[in-house]
């Protein structure tokens, strides 16, 4: 009976010891092995590991995480207020230093804020608004500003707190509420100007179209007039030639018939004619047969 009890006790003690000296580290974790509170080593690769039963394994999440604080106001070099919302992608890089200097995530975020925001406000205070917001891409410096802040704060954070800063980014650029009204007023004025420009340009185009149309009409009609007069002239000339050719064959007869023809038109009921009784027409009337030759 006693032998059994001893055996059982040994087994239980052994199991407890084994379970105390084995620990797992997952893919998302670091493990910090402490011996009576003093860190002895950091385990970064996941899996099953062993330690002394009197040592403790502290686990830390090594995944990338995001610190996403409320927006804050900055002043640019040209004295413009900007509300900028940043986020910081960071992770615990050195668990030993982290646990000694910071301890937990909220206080880590506070330290990050201190390091990064002082750099940010210095960098933005050294930049014009144009270098953050501009249609001219060559003026923009926001990317390089953020990159240099990322690099410098990463160095500082790792040395002091064992934190790695992956990226500092601007996730929103805006204006303080009290400045927005000015911007809205400017936007409205700008729109008004653009609207006027559209109308004026439309008017201009319309006038040009009408003028072109009028000119084309004039051109078409005058060209037609020119051509029609040429045609009429040619017709008249041809007619004259035909008359000339025909009448030249017998000018004497033409003179007779044409003269008589014009009498028909010249002489009307208002004409009084005085006829000599000796005229060819009346000779016979006044002299009888003797009048004829």
């Amino acid at each position: 009976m006693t032998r059994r009890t001893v055996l059982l006790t040994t087994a239980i003690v052994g199991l407890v010891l084994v379970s105390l000296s084995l620990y797992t580290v997952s893919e998302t974790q670091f493990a910090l092995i402490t011996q009576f509170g003093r860190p002895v080593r950091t385990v970064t690769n996941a899996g099953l590991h062993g330690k002394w039963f009197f040592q403790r394994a502290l686990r830390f999440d090594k995944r990338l995480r995001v610190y996403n604080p409320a927006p804050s106001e900055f002043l640019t070099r040209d004295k413009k207020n900007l509300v900028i919302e940043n986020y910081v992608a960071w992770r615990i890089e050195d668990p030993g230093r982290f646990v000694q200097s910071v301890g937990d995530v909220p206080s880590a975020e506070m330290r990050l804020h201190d390091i990064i925001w002082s750099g940010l406000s210095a960098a933005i205070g050294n930049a014009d608004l144009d270098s953050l917001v501009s249609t001219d891409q060559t003026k923009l410096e926001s990317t390089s500003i953020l990159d240099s802040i990322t690099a410098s704060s990463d160095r500082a954070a790792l040395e002091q707190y064992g934190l790695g800063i992956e990226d500092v980014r601007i996730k929103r650029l805006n204006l303080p509420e009290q400045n927005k009204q000015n911007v809205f007023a400017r936007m409205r004025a700008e729109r008004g100007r653009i609207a006027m420009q559209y109308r004026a340009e439309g008017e201009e185009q319309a006038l040009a179209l009408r003028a072109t149309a009028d000119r084309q009409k004039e051109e078409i009609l005058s060209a037609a007039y020119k051509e029609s007069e040429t045609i009429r002239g040619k017709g008249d000339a041809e007619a004259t030639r035909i008359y000339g050719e025909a009448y030249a064959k017998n000018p004497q007869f033409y003179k007779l018939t044409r003269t008589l023809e014009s009498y028909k038109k010249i002489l009307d009921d208002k004409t009084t004619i005085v006829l000599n009784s000796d005229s060819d027409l009346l000779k016979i009337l006044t002299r009888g047969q003797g009048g004829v030759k």
Partner: protein
Amino acid sequence: MSILISPPVFAAESVEPAQPPKRHRLRQVAGWVLGLWLLSGVYIVQTDQQAVVARWGRVVEPRVFPGIHYSLPWPIDKVYKLKVRELRRTVVGGQIPDVVLGRQANNSQFFSGDQNLLNIRVVAQYSVSNPRDFLFSTQNPDQVVGLAVESELVRRVAHTKVDDILTTQKLAIQNDILLSAQRDVDSYGAGALLSSINIESVSPPPETADAFRGVAGARSDAFRIVNEADGYANDLIPRARGEADQLLDQANSYANGKINHAQGDASHFEAVAAEYSKSPAVTSTRVYLEVMELVLPKMKKLIVDGNSNLDLSVIGRQDGGNEGTPQR
């Protein structure tokens, strides 16, 4: 997202009624328990899923494709299943507060390159490209993707003109964000693949909406004015062409008429002249008399003796004040 294969619970079996052949019975139960425990390692990955297997926390199978598989049972192996084909969605901008990304309501204003404010709402769609990274390398991959898209949107909008954002550049902005946000997501190792960035709505702030509508109105006004002018031109020129055709037609018919007339008159003359030359004296007398017959009846006639002097006052008396010109 990840499905944990929970340990089989055998509590009920361990308190089976213990009957006479106690040792034998116990061994049988232990065998059953062991068998069931080993069997519990069987798992199925559905068609739209992929799985990651971790042994003691360390990934041993980074990508298990659909089908039936076996892993060591709990607590040794852990199977994480992930719907990789599923399109995930994240929204940037918009009026709805978002707890996951820590956004407040009414936070859709963006600052454009020419310092205008615009309300923009963008929807990004993405899927899992690397299940292992998606599960283990960031704390919240969905948040990381959303932030990458948002920061790239801010940067892109900050160097684009408001009119371009509202009109022509929309597609270019979407493509640029897709590329640069994917670069960011890759650098964070989030294991996600962006499939589309869609600017769902972009509009001026309500405070300036009237002014923007005014521009739209002006644009359509200008369009209308130009159209009207076009209409005027389209009416005027064909009409002028018609008029020109008419002028030419008239000229042609005039010329043809003249020529035909001339030809007619000429052939008439030639015919008559031919006959005239056969007997000129008689013909001329005849023609003369014919015309006189036609002309003289209408006129007032005074016949005077060829040798006596003419008292012109008779003309005045006969006419009753009407003046007549003595002819021939």
